[in-house]
């Protein structure tokens, strides 16, 4: 089992070992931090986006729902504003209601006079203890697809939501999407590395154990993330690797360490 400061590898006699060791320890440290932050860290970013949305729009409430493939539900993860508190944890069908429509189509929209429709989202709305008059909903979307929905409910006063509000909410949604993607990469990386490092650190570890550890670590990783699969393969091979191959592992780890860094804060031009 890995003990901090005592990491040893069968490759220690090679000149590249110090570099490999430093890279592994740097990534392991980052992964340990990420593991401590998750899930609280991800929630904190979402919460700050929701809080900022409420303030900027002078709205009664804002919420962020994320899609959970395992249950095929949109789940409200955070809500801000006094009217939104009861909504956290609600699970919505991704093909129904305003949030579902915006999620499945990626098309932002505003609806007003919501209460005029006796069937519209009423069961969901009443579950939160709050029935909104108007809703602005935008998708959380990036090149990887749509991962959820940001909703803003009811401006104070009589002002409704306009075309510019849709665009502005889209900026906030983009921020949330970037933050969520980054925290998922960090979390998945941490899971993988902690397991692999633990196995590699044992001087007499059985190669089969390493394979098993890697296999366990990569279960549940986001589909299609080729970087992480490549890393898993490379680390598994490194135990019996020539120096050139070890250099490859170091390069991959370096790249991964950079990728796992939190994104720089974004600013808007004024």
């Amino acid at each position: 089992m890995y003990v901090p400061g005592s990491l040893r590898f069968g490759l220690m006699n090679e000149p590249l070992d110090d570099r490999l060791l430093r890279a592994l320890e740097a990534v392991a440290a980052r992964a340990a931090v990420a593991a401590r932050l998750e899930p609280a860290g991800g929630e904190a970013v979402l919460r700050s986006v929701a809080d900022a949305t409420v303030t900027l729009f002078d709205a009664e409430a804002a919420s962020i729902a994320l899609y959970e493939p395992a249950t095929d539900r949109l789940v409200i993860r955070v809500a801000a504003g006094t009217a939104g508190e009861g909504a956290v944890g609600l699970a919505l069908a991704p093909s129904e209601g305003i949030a579902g429509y915006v999620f499945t189509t990626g098309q932002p929209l505003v609806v007003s006079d919501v209460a005029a429709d006796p069937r519209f989202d009423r069961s969901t709305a009443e579950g939160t203890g709050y029935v909104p008059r108007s809703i602005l909903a935008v998708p959380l979307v990036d090149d990887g697809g749509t991962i959820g929905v940001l909703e803003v409910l009811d401006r104070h006063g009589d002002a409704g939501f306009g075309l510019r509000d849709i665009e502005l909410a889209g900026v906030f949604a983009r921020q949330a999407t970037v933050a969520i993607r980054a925290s998922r990469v960090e979390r998945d990386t941490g899971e993988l590395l902690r397991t692999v490092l633990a196995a590699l650190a044992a001087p007499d570890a059985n190669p089969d154990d390493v394979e098993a550890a890697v296999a366990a670590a990569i279960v549940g990783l986001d589909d299609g993330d080729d970087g992480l699969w490549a890393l898993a393969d490379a680390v598994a091979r490194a135990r019996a690797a020539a120096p050139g191959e070890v250099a490859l592992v170091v390069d991959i780890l370096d790249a991964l360490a950079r990728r796992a860094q939190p994104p720089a804060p974004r600013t808007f031009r004024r």
Partner: protein
Amino acid sequence: MTTELPAWSEPFVGERRDGLARHGPWGRVDRDWALGDAGGRGIRVAIVDSGVEGSHPAIGGRLVDSVAVERDGADWRVVPAPPDDLVGHGTASAGVIHDLAPEADLVSIRVLGVDNKGNGGGFAAGLAWAIEQSGASIVNLSLSSRSDTFFGQLHELADEAYFRNVLLVSAVNNVAVASYPSLFAAVVSVAAHDVPRPDAWFYNPEPPVEFGAHGLNVDVAWRGGTRMTVTGNSFAAPHITGLAARIRSAHPGITPFETKALLAATADNAT
């Protein structure tokens, strides 16, 4: 405050709208002639959306066919479906089209709920059916796909529609990711303007987005026989669809290209 988002409504809003004045050779084309008085008679319009509530008073009994896309293993198939709407959005679109072209027949193709991960396969299947089998000469698309996986297939479908004499009218998407087919050249792409008149539309000579139509605080039909006030590009598109139905009805044999030209020639900023 400005953002770096593609603000597709920008050319149609406030002072920028005044800069859209057009000086095309349209002196002998006027709106009455272009739209005619047939009200969309003989035209069938397909609505690819969340379904259409056929019994809604705003549809005027004009819904003649209703289908839905279903997952079939790794593929999709189109099956008959009851005339219901999962959300209300498709009914809203249908109501707008019926308001503008009351004699046009409507076909609902429900693509919502088959493809929650949003990769676009179910949408592409529904669009293919609309183009090839619905009998419609105009297809209203309030949604689009952001998946590069389906870029090629959607591009082929947009071209196929064009050559089959089927006009695609698509709402553009105000998020910072390209979406298809709304940005393809063969499609009529639509964003919302901020003029409170359903009969106002504008042509933008600087594509990709070519038309601005009523999309701010629009009174629309909604699920359950009700009405709602809504805002978004997806409510602007059916206004252009309804106008296109009238043009195609008034001028049988007109092509998608010519329909688009007449929409531009009779826009509020055409002179």
